[in-house]
């Protein structure tokens, strides 16, 4: 699915990723943890193709193809999805319109016909129920005036509708109440399948009680400094990051 090999990357000229390697196979769930500023979001943006985020060395292959040969929107249409840590607002553009355009773009890319408005509306309503957002949110501007938690649910709703092959979720669990955490977990678990993979960026072991990861990685200083199974998350919860950073240093 995704093979990241010795990736170095800069943001606006500043080096953030320093030789990061990561392999995600189909069907796997990887959790990425690590201190603030260690480069977790940067990794997500480099993979998604955010302007200004530049890979300076290393390779990334996604579904067998060189990721960096694809435009941002091409990667998205090929099933790479990033749930943003800080979703932006697009005033006046209704969520429904935005979602329909996204889904249509992906369908067109796969050579499928665009969905008719009625069918899509049904799907969207269904998805909004799953993430426990009132369908009224479909008519509101994209993230416009949404609370922090509502924005996160909205990201999740987009993921449900777009049915990505690789979903990178950047702290979708941050700022959520306990119930919402369950909603996110249920959303992800319902989508888990043998040909869909997840990369979950999180600060909380708690989420991993609900979504059982196959691997847990610790990112520090722009590289993965330790990998393990879910017990690593428990250990981090107890001991923090300092001991790993000490060991690495």
């Amino acid at each position: 699915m995704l093979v990241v090999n010795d990736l170095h990357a800069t943001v606006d000229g500043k080096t953030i990723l320093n030789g990061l390697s990561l392999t995600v196979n189909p069907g796997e769930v990887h959790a990425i943890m690590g201190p603030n500023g260690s480069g977790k979001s940067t990794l997500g943006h480099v993979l998604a193709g955010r302007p200004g985020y530049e890979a300076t060395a290393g390779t990334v292959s996604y579904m067998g193809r060189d990721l960096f040969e694809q435009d941002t929107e091409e990667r998205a249409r090929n099933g790479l999805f990033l749930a943003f840590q800080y979703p932006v607002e697009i005033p006046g553009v209704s969520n429904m319109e935005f979602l329909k355009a996204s889904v249509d773009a992906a369908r067109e890319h796969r050579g499928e016909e665009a969905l008719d408005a009625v069918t899509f509306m049904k799907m969207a309503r269904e998805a909004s129920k799953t993430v426990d957002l009132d369908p009224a949110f479909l008519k509101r501007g994209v993230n416009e005036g949404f609370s922090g938690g509502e924005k996160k649910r909205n990201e999740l709703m987009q993921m449900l509708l777009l049915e990505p092959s690789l979903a990178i979720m950047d702290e979708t669990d941050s700022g959520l109440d306990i119930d919402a955490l369950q909603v996110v977990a249920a959303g992800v678990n319902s989508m888990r399948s043998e040909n869909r993979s997840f990369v979950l960026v999180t600060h909380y072991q708690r989420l991993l009680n609900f979504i059982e990861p196959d691997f847990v990685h610790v990112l520090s200083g722009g590289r993965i400094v330790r990998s393990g199974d879910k017990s690593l998350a428990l250990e981090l919860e107890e001991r923090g990051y300092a001991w790993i950073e000490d060991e690495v240093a």
Partner: protein
Amino acid sequence: MSQEQINQAIDKEYAAGFVSAIESDTLPPGLDEEVIRFISAKKNEPEWLLEWRLEAYRGWLEMAEPEWAHVHYPKIDFDAISYFSSPKSMEDGPQSLDEVDPELLRIYEKLGIPLHEQEMLAGVAVDAVFDSVSVATTFRSKLAEAGVIFCPISEAVHEHPELVKKYLGSVVPRKDNFYAALNSAVFSDGSFVYIPKGVRCPMELSTYFRINEANTGQFERTLIIADEDSHVSYLEGCTAPMRDDNQVHAAVVELVCLDRAEIKYSTVQNWYPGDAEGKGGIYNFVTKRGVAHNDAKISWTQVETGSAITWKYPSCVLRGDNSIGEFYSVALTNNLQQADTGTKMIHLGKNTRSTIISKGISAGRSSNAYRGLVRMSPRASGARNYTQCDSLLLGDKCAAHTFPYIETKNPSAVIEHEATTSKVSDDQMYLCQQRGLDPEKAVSMIVNGFCKEVFKELPMEFAVEAGKLLEVSLEGSVG
């Protein structure tokens, strides 16, 4: 990178820019009293109208071109313009659609105007003004049943002289301003509408303007009278071919909205804006004004995407008590286009109310100015105005300006003004692209979202056209 994508997305070719090979009768360039006599004679006008024109012309000679607007262009040589052009086949005047030159009709089809009655299931009655002459007015019989008069103004002069004489120049006086005076002297055609007392016009009325001939000016004149307790919605669309020279368009629109009547006037203006280097394009100097009597309501909605220069301030004189004025505007400028547009709300009556929603979008190296005046007269007690003025910038070489003027002579009047300036942010573009949208689609979606409050004021037919102009997709099918 994303800036470049934004530019690509908005650099669309002008789709209505074809030139039509129609034989026409065009007056040689230049303007003097003889030209005015010629125009008047061509139209068999009564003596009073010729005198009216000549008086306007004499006034115009004394006037100077206004220079206060935030637009820059080389001085216009008004003697290099031809003041009359008529497609040749119109000489004898078509009596029905069947007699209209098929080539003309094809042009309108190309423009997407459904002229044939059988195609007009949408129920839009169209008056088409090609260069200076009104070509066809559809649906006239159905309108006549309701007592509605909808015809070329040149015809109204003959058929309804009392109405024309009474109201022509009553809202925009002949010497109101430089361009209005010029228009009054040389106007060749335009639409005339009269809605009788208590009548709700059974369909949308619509006029399409098209400038075809090179070096001609278009000076159409529209007069709409909504008698007491009547209601009408009127749509206006404009296109012009691509030409390297600048062409002048100086129209006058007068709305008379009598007690408890309502006029909704919508415009989608897509005159040729000139090329990317600023060569060619229409100079659009338009005077639009309405007078609202007691409890009457005038609503202007405009979507301005064309013209090299736009100078236009659809205004409401809220003369009657409790009258209402509205102005909803989207003005998009790209490349080297310049727009100075806005409105005037003149509150004369008690408890008059006005709303101004202006959305300016600037791209390329263009300049986009909102200029608005809200005046509360001493008598306008309890009057209210709400103004919201938003600018959206695409790129960093364009400019947006806001010039709000407020004059209040009544302490009980309330005026609210809000203004914002925003950019299509890289983050918004990134979000859209991460969700699979190409940059072009992303820009048009963000821009459409920005314009939403105005688009929802447009009648359905025009919302579609405006949407196409800014590329809407799902809008409207979500309920």
